[in-house]
C-alpha cells in the first residue's frame, strides 16, 4: 500500500547539490554584511579553484587527503560503524610511513616507496583494529572508543616526535624522509602528487570490496541488519573488526599522503582536522566512493580558492569554514531539503 519507490539516482545527486547551493546563498549574506558583492567573491573563489589547470591541480592536492579520510569514514559507515577516529588513525599511519621513510634510507625507490605506503596503511589499520576489537569483543561503542583513541594517538605521536624521533631542528618534527620514499609531483609548481591516483585506485577498491565481493556482502549486511546477518551465518564480530581495519588503512593513507607527498617529514599535529573533515566528506558524498571523491574535490576547491578570496576581497577566509559547516548542516537536514524541493513521495 505504502510502497516506497526507490529514490532515483538524480535525486541522490540533487540533495547534496541543493545543500551546497543553500550554503552558498546563506554565505552570501555574510559577504554582503562585510560589504562585498557575493558574485565577485564567489567568482574569485571559482576562478582560483577551478579556473585554470594549475588551480585545478591545487584543488586536487587539497582534496586528496579528504578523499582518503572521507572514504575511511564511508567504508566503516557501510558496515554500520561510525568511525570518528580517522584523525587518530591518520596520525599513526603518518608516523609509520615517516618512520619507514627516514629509517630505511638506502632502499631502492621501487621498494622504499611502496613499503612506506604499506606501513602507513598498516599503522592506520592497526590503530582502528583496536577500536574494532573493543567494539566486537567488549561492546564498547565505537564512537566513544575511537574518540579516546584519537587522544592517545595524538599524544603518542607528540611524544615520538618531540622525544625519541625528534629530528634535531628547533621545531617538533622528525628527520626528513629519504627522496626514495617521496611521492612524485605531477604538476609542479603545485604540490599535487601521484597520491591522487592512489586515491582513485582506493575508491575503485572500496567499490569492488563493498559491492562485488563476499566480504562486502557480509560487511554491508552487518551494517544494515546485524540480526539478519547473524542468522545468515555471518560472523558479526569478525566483520566489525575487518571493517574498522580497512577503514583505518584508508585513514592511514591520508596521513601517508601528507607525509610522503607534502611535508616530507612528520610534523607535530600537522593534520588540522583532516580526519574529522572526513566525516563531513562522507556525509556529503552519501558514503559512496564516487560521492566521496566529488565531495572531497568540492571541499578542496573551497579551501584552494579561499586564500585568494581573502587576499582580493574584504571577505575573510573563515567564510569557507562557515560554508562547509552549512553544507554539512543542510545535508544532515535532508528532510528539510526534501520538503523544500517537494521530493516527498506519498507522505
Amino acid at each position: 500500500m505504502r510502497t516506497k519507490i526507490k529514490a532515483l539516482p538524480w535525486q541522490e545527486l540533487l540533495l547534496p547539490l541543493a545543500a551546497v547551493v543553500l550554503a552558498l546563498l546563506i554565505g552570501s549574506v555574510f559577504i554582503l554584511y562585510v560589504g562585498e558583492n557575493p558574485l565577485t567573491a564567489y567568482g574569485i573563489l571559482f576562478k582560483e579553484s577551478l579556473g585554470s589547470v594549475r588551480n585545478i591541480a591545487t584543488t586536487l592536492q587539497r582534496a586528496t587527503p579528504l578523499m582518503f579520510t572521507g572514504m575511511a569514514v564511508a567504508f566503516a559507515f557501510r558496515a554500520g560503524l561510525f568511525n570518528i577516529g580517522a584523525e587518530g588513525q591518520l596520525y599513526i599511519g603518518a608516523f609509520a610511513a615517516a618512520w619507514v621513510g627516514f629509517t630505511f634510507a638506502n632502499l631502492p625507490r621501487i621498494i622504499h616507496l611502496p613499503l612506506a605506503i604499506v606501513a602507513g596503511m598498516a599503522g592506520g589499520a592497526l590503530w582502528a583494529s583496536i577500536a574494532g576489537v573493543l567494539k566486537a569483543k567488549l561492546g564498547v561503542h565505537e564512537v566513544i572508543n575511537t574518540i579516546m583513541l584519537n587522544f592517545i594517538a595524538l599524544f603518542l605521536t607528540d611524544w615520538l616526535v618531540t622525544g625519541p624521533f625528534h629530528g634535531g631542528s628547533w621545531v617538533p618534527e622528525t628527520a626528513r624522509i629519504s627522496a626514495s620514499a617521496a611521492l612524485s609531483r605531477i604538476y609542479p609548481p603545485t604540490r599535487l602528487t601521484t597520491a591522487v591516483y592512489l586515491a582513485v585506485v582506493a575508491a575503485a577498491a572500496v567499490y569492488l570490496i563493498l559491492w562485488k565481493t563476499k566480504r562486502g556482502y557480509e560487511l554491508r549486511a552487518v551494517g544494515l541488519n546485524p540480526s539478519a546477518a547473524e542468522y545468515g551465518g555471518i560472523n558479526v564480530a569478525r566483520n566489525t573488526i575487518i571493517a574498522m581495519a580497512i577503514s583505518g588503512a584508508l585513514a592511514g593513507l591520508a596521513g601517508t599522503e601528507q607525509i610522503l607527498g607534502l611535508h616530507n617529514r612528520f610534523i607535530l599535529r600537522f593534520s588540522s582536522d583532516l580526519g574529522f573533515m572526513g566525516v563531513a566528506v562522507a556525509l556529503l558524498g552519501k558514503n559512496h566512493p564516487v560521492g566521496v571523491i566529488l565531495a572531497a574535490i568540492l571541499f578542496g576547491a573551497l579551501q584552494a580558492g579561499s586564500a585568494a578570496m581573502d587576499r582580493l576581497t574584504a571577505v575573510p577566509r573563515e567564510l569557507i569554514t562557515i560554508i562547509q559547516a552549512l553544507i554539512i548542516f543542510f545535508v544532515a537536514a535532508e528532510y528539510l531539503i526534501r520538503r523544500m524541493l517537494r521530493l516527498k513521495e506519498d507522505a
Partner: protein
Amino acid sequence: MGKVLEMRAITKQFPRVLANDKVDFDLNHGEIHALVGENGSGKSTLMSILYGLYQKDGGEIIVRGQPVQITEPRQAIDLKIGMVFQHFMLIEPLTVAENIVLGSEIRKGPFLDHKRMVSEVERLSEEYGLKIDPNAKVADLSVGLQQRVEILKALYRGADILILDEPTAVLTPQEVEDLFEVLNTLKSKGTSIVFITHKIKEVLAVSDRVSVLRRGKKIGTKSTAETNEQELAEMMVGRVVLLRVEKGPAKPGREVLRLDGVTVKDQFGHVKVNNVSLTVRSGEVLGIAGVEGNGQSELVEAIAGLTKVAGGSIHLSNQDITGWSPLRVRRAGFGLVPEDRHRRGLVLDYSVADNLILGLHGSKPFVHNGLRSEKKIAEHAEELIRDYDIRPPVASQPARALSGGNQQKIVVAREFTQNPDLLICSQPTRGVDVGAIEFIHQQVIAQRDQGAAVLLVSAELDEVLSLSDRVAVMYNGEIVNVMPIEEVTEHKLGFLMLGGRPEEYDANEVSGSADQD
C-alpha cells in the same frame, strides 16, 4: 439504523498504482464493519483518506449526512473520527494518562493538572469498560494494553467513529479475545467501528458487515451472518482458495533432530527453555503450539545456533551440534524460516536477489575466489522468483518494497530450495495474506513429503492443526505434551496452552461428558 458515514466513489492514484478505484463504503451507527482484503488491496489507503492522511483524487465523503472535506487528521478528529494504527503512536516514557490527554492537556494555570488528568482517564476507562492503570508507564505495558491506550486516546478526543488498522496483527490470541470484547462494549455504547484486517476468522468472529477490496476495487459488501470463510477468501483472492491443506499421511523415517534436556537462559539468567526433550523424524511435521513468549523463540534460536544453550544437547542427523555457529548448523543441513522476517530473515535494504542468497552467499556457486558471481546470483533469483511467484518479479528491487506476503516468500524460497534435512518454520504465515498462506502451507507439506523433518512453531491453532502430524504444546518453557494429531482437538490445545496439565484435561473430559449425559 442511520448511516454515520458514507464514502462514495473514492479514487486515489499513487505514482504507480491506482490504490482506490471508485470505492463505495458506508458505516451504520453502532456497527462493526470489517474491511478486508489482501496486502496492497487499498483498505488502509481508503481509511487513511477518511482520516485525512491522504487526499482523495475523486469521490465524496459524507459524515452524519453532511458532505465534508477532510484534508488533515485535525479535521477528522473534529468530526469525531478516531484511528488506531498498527504501529502505535505512543510516547513510551510517559504514563497512560499523559499519553491519552496529549495535545489537549488539562491545565491549572501554567501547570498540568495531573490529578484531573488521571480522574478523567479513570472516568473514561470505567465508562467504556477498558480497564487500565492511568499512572502506569506505557513502556511497561503489554502490546495489548498499549493498544487499549490508543483506543482510549481516540475516545478521549470524542471519537464515535473508530477506525482500527489491522489491530490484531500485533496481538497474542488471548489479547485478540480481549480486544473483541472491548469492541463489542464500544459498539453497545453506540460507537461505530471500522475494523481493517486480512484474517477471515476475525471478520466472522466480530463484525456485523464485511466489505472486501481487491486491487483497489470494492468487490462487495456482505452481512457477516450471511457469508462464510470460503466465500470471503474467494472474494479476497479472486479465485477458489484451499483453506484446508491437502496432505497424505506422514511417512516418518529416520530421526533427524533430537533434543535432550535442552535448557536456555536469557541474558539475565532467567530460564526460558526448561529441560526440553523431543525428536523430529524425516517425513513428518511436528507442530509446537503455544501462546507466544513461552520459550518457543528461544528454543528455535538455540537449535539454529543463534543463542547459547545452557544445558542439554542438540543432535542433527546424529551429529552433536550443540554450541555450533549458525553457519555450521546451516551447512549441516538446516533451514529456518524465522518468526520475525524483518529482524532476522531479511536485510530489507538488500535487493530481492541478494536476500535470496543470505546464508548461501559464501557458498558455491554464488561466490568464486571471494568474488560474487553476479550471473549465478541473478539466475538463482530468477528461478526462485518464478517458482515461488514472488511479486513484483523484479530481482533488483529492495525487499522493503514488497508486501509482507511476498517478503515471506523470499525467505521461504531461500530456505526451502536448499532441501534441508531439518526445516524449522516459525510463525511462517504471520502477516501474510490468504493466497500466500495457502501457497506456503503447500510448500511445507511438499518439503515433508520430500523427506525433510519439519518443526513448525505457530501461535495460530489452525495452522498447527492443519499442517502437523504430531503436536507438542509448550508452556512456560516446557513441553507439556506431545500427541499424534488424531488425538488433538482445538479445545484440548487451548486448555494445554493456557497451562493446564494433560491429566487434568482427561479428568475434566470424563466428568464433562458425564454432565452432558
